[in-house]
């Protein structure tokens, strides 16, 4: 018989993605054996992430203040705006250290078969943001699948008439990849999006 508090912790941990019953047990035992302050800090961190983290009022990425770090940072170029589906995508782009502009997180994509339309995304907020006239170029960085493509095409239709330059991130072969092992869809896209040298 295992004590109830331990069972409860295992049950909660097992709800996490990628965590099975066994791993949950191992994690629970680890917490139990660790010094008392670790459990304190862990529970505090979990509580605070729910209490303090919310969406940035301007770009809808995550922040614990009114505006996120990307929106507050004056060194970032406010003329270029990168539109992404999720915060995870924003983080991936940020890891490249290539992009110095600002972001806008849509929180999803247009998904006709799931009934997700423009109103369910942060598109109205994007258009409002553009009202101040600072943005000159928008980079559409939605995923290269049919929903990401539909979203990019829909946004293009809205943005082009506003006189904003709209670009789409390129799609094709992975760096260091081998043509022979590339999948058909990627290779087809890479061919059709070839550029003149």
């Amino acid at each position, binding site marked *: 018989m295992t004590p109830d508090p331990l069972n409860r912790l295992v049950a909660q941990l097992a709800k996490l993605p990628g965590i099975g019953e066994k791993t949950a047990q191992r994690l629970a035992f680890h917490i139990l054996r660790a010094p008392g302050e670790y459990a304190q800090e862990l529970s505090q961190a979990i509580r605070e992430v729910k209490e303090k983290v919310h969406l940035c009022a301007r770009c809808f990425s995550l922040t614990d203040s009114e505006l996120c770090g990307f929106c507050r940072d004056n060194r970032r170029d406010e003329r270029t705006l990168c539109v992404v589906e999720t915060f995870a995508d924003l983080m991936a782009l940020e890891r490249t250290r290539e992009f110095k502009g600002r972001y806008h997180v849509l929180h999803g994509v247009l998904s*006709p078969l799931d009934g997700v339309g423009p*109103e369910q995304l942060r598109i109205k907020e994007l258009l409002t943001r553009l009202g101040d006239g600072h943005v000159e170029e928008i980079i559409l960085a939605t995923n290269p699948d049919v929903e990401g493509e539909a979203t990019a095409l829909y946004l293009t239709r809205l943005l082009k008439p506003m006189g904003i330059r709209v670009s789409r991130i390129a799609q094709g072969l992975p760096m260091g990849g081998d043509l022979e092992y590339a999948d058909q869809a990627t290779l087809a896209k890479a061919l059709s999006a070839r550029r003149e040298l």
Partner: protein
Amino acid sequence: MERFVDEALVLSTVDYGESDRLVTLLTREHGKLTAFAAGARKSKRRFAGALEPYMRLRVQLVETRGSTVRLDSADIVAGYYGAREDLALIARALYAVELCRELTRDHEPHLELFELLEAYLGKLDAKEAGPTSLLAFELSALAQAGLMPRFDSCSLCGGPPGERPRFDQAHGGAVCEPCGFRARDAVAVPAELLSGLRALQEGQRTPLPAELRARARGVLNVFISHHLGRRLKSVDFMAQVGLD
């Protein structure tokens, strides 16, 4: 457990758990199937780019217990990439696959519907399919499913629909003015709408003017949702983004 090869059009996909995906396929020989694609979300290489709506594939499937099959491999036969470059084409293609998904039952062969959808996707890809083409496709797909709205005569008395016809989804089509009192849900429709839809049903491909297309869309929406018991989701999308 039997393994078989077939041609398939992807109707829809849904993520399953952490790393897998369920793919609804319309196959040439075996009808609609729900296939379990293990690792499709985690390993980008195995099914890369193939498990997307309206891809035409050559698939290797394995029968399993229950009604699901296992997807072992998928080669792209046609990606219809031309039909992925334009919002209106994407909207029509997704509407077409959703309609086919809702009109069919698992494991029942639908060769004609497969060929109809394949031909329509080919037309969209070649950018030869305008908004009227979707109405024509719908009417053909409905006919394949045994649902043929009647436009050339009154569904109740069989007489001509007349100058002031109505349309009643429950009775399956046009209703003439004198029969109108027996069809309480019927709505008045222009006579040229019925003749336009009838022409499409007969295989004529003359584009309908925008106003008639909008009326046709309304009539087909109520007809389809009445017979399927629900409204197609992609039809709302078309309305939201202002396309047909």
